């Protein structure tokens, strides 16, 4: 590129320049630093405010906010176990369904697919991340929900002997935990798959070739060398997907059924932390305890996502450690591609 285009006023060294000529540099540095400080201050203010607003509810209810089962607005009691459990159930379903498919897709794209299709396939899977969550909600309400209802009923009836998974039978309706979890699985698939692909690409070729040289089949090679090497990174990717699933609001609120009770089987209606905030914030605006409870729900949500994300990034860094180049950090590249694919 045009490095020579930067010849300034013909002056040679920085020390020889007049103070006035040095001013723009100082202004730039001061300005950018100030900006970074302001942004940091904004983020800090956000957390302080979040904690401050939730303190009323948390003080009043203590641990029952998370473990008590009684979300009752009319009596001003906010024990949010149904919300926490609903969040955990739907996220678990999303992980169980989404991660194996995402890893399998990543394996296929990096190891087995004919080279010329790799880019296109990868891009197609990534496109899943571009669909807005409200569109997933629309599709879930009118397409996926009704179409899967007969299958769900059959499943519940056939496997009714298994606790939680079966049972419910004929009273199943389209909005339920399972559909919410399934939609979440689709939404986290691109993230997990993108990270898995990055991680799988860092497996040293020597390891793979050594296994092949010893006579392993393709699948044995993958199982013996690629997967163990990539496991930490893939776990990290799965956890980033989990973080996304926990915080997802709009798609969930449309398909989960909005029932503030703890469901007893997979196809029950339920509720989630994010959904309750979206549904109740408006009416809570002028009710101090209610709005504090919603902030507390937001805080719980945020802490959960934070923990999961910290763990995730630690795993991802461990997983991509092998390929750190002097000036680039592919761990960052992985997280940045994740960020742009839409983690939050």
């Amino acid at each position: 590129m045009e490095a020579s285009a930067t010849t300034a006023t013909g002056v040679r060294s920085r020390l020889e320049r007049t103070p006035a000529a040095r001013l723009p540099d100082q202004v730039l540095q001061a300005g950018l630093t100030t900006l970074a400080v302001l942004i940091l201050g904004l983020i800090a203010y956000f957390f302080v405010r979040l904690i401050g607003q939730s303190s009323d509810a948390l003080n009043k209810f203590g641990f029952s906010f998370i473990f008590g089962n009684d979300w009752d607005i009319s009596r001003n009691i906010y024990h949010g176990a149904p919300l926490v459990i609903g969040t955990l159930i739907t996220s678990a379903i999303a992980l169980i369904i989404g991660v194996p498919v995402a890893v399998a897709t990543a394996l296929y794209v990096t190891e087995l697919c004919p080279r010329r299709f790799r880019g296109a396939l990868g891009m197609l899977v990534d496109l899943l991340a571009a669909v807005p969550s409200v569109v997933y909600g629309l599709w879930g309400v009118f397409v996926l929900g009704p179409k899967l209802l007969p299958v769900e009923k059959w499943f519940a009836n056939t496997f009714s002997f298994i606790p939680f998974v079966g049972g419910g039978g004929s009273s199943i309706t389209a909005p339920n935990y399972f559909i919410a979890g399934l939609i979440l699985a689709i939404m986290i698939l691109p993230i997990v798959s993108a990270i898995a692909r990055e991680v799988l690409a860092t497996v040293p070729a020597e390891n793979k070739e050594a296994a092949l040289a010893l006579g392993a089949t393709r699948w044995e090679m993958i199982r013996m060398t690629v997967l163990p090497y990539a496991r930490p990174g893939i776990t990290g990717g799965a956890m980033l997907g989990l973080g996304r699933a926990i915080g997802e609001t709009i798609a969930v609120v449309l398909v989960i059924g909005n029932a503030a009770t703890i469901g007893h089987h997979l196809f029950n209606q339920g509720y989630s932390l994010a959904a309750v905030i979206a549904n109740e914030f408006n009416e809570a605006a002028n009710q101090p305890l209610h709005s504090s409870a919603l902030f507390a729900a937001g805080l719980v949500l945020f802490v959960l996502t934070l923990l999961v994300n910290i763990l995730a990034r630690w795993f991802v860094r461990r997983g991509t450690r092998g390929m750190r180049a002097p000036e680039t950090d592919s761990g960052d590249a992985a997280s940045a591609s994740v960020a742009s694919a839409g983690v939050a």
Partner: protein
Amino acid sequence: MNKETKVRTKRLGGVAVSLAAALAIAACGSSNSSSSSSAGGGGSTGTSSSGGSSSAAVSPATLNGAGSTLALPIYQQWGSNLKGQGLTVNYNGVGSGAGIADLQTATVDFAGSDPALKPTDTKAMKGPALQFPVAFGAITVSYNLLGIKSGLKLDGPTLANIFSGKIKTWNDPAIKSLNPGMSLPSTAITVVHRSDSSGTTNGFTTYLSDVSPGWKSSIGAGKDVKWPTGTGAAKNSGVAAAVKQTQGAVGYVEQAYAIENGFTYAAVKNSSGKYIEPTIENTSAAANGVTVPADLGISTINSPSADAYPIVSQTFLVVYKDPCKDGKASTSVAKGLKSFLAYAFGAGQQTLGSGGNKLPYAPLPSSLAAKDNTQLQTMTCNGSPIS
């Protein structure tokens, strides 16, 4: 020179272009919007009363309101009628509870609320507030059951048991005993209720509390109650959509929504022991017998009138007595509010009733409309009466 400007200018090529384009289009758009929307206003089932409201010339302004979805069809229709005269009414159906909350934080100019104001509500307001009853709507018990067209009879205790989950299938003996001769399927009952704070819920649960002591002690009445069973949906439209999509579902929706979607609804036993279907006459019967307190906070649930449909809800427009004070709203908004309210109890009433073009709500009895008008004259703007 500002270092940020330098960084910004170069990056902003594409964004600046699209921003300019967006603003240009929007500028064209907003200048066209008044002409196209007045065309839209005439194209609906809106009555010709927009032309006939010669006595109520409205003051041009933009009013923002929010609240009851029971009354949403009314305010949307009126907004559509009045747009041609320069009064823009934006009404967001967020439920009565959220509407009152919005008024308390003064993020809206008026609230639609079905239940009358409680002392806790008025205490949290930013000033004295006035409530004006504007119409009455029947809360139907709508169901989606193949083969059962109409004529299903239900009484209070049975309804309470259905909505609390004690009765689980349509062919339950309790329902059968009220409907001999009707062959009811064994479909499971799916209860659909509101997930947001709702005046419709308040009306329905007040009725259930009146007729079932068991309901009253375990669940009670209110805008939000803890439903032991069922799916939650937001707004009247959400409940209607959920009922429509689920076989065997039953939910409580205002009549306009039931009619719009071709729902079948039940005839409910009233306080005189008769099974009444929700019609405009039966809804008006509830309105006619009501006692009116000084602050106009009426309630028509479980009306004692012999022919009244038992689950009739009133709906109020709630505003601040002095909307201008403390800078909550401008003078033009206050004037617009007053003229909107005058329209509401005046020419707007002609859009309600039975008959092809009208909205399925019962209009105000003339005595009540007169009381509304009297209260309207007490509105002020920064202390002086609004012209």
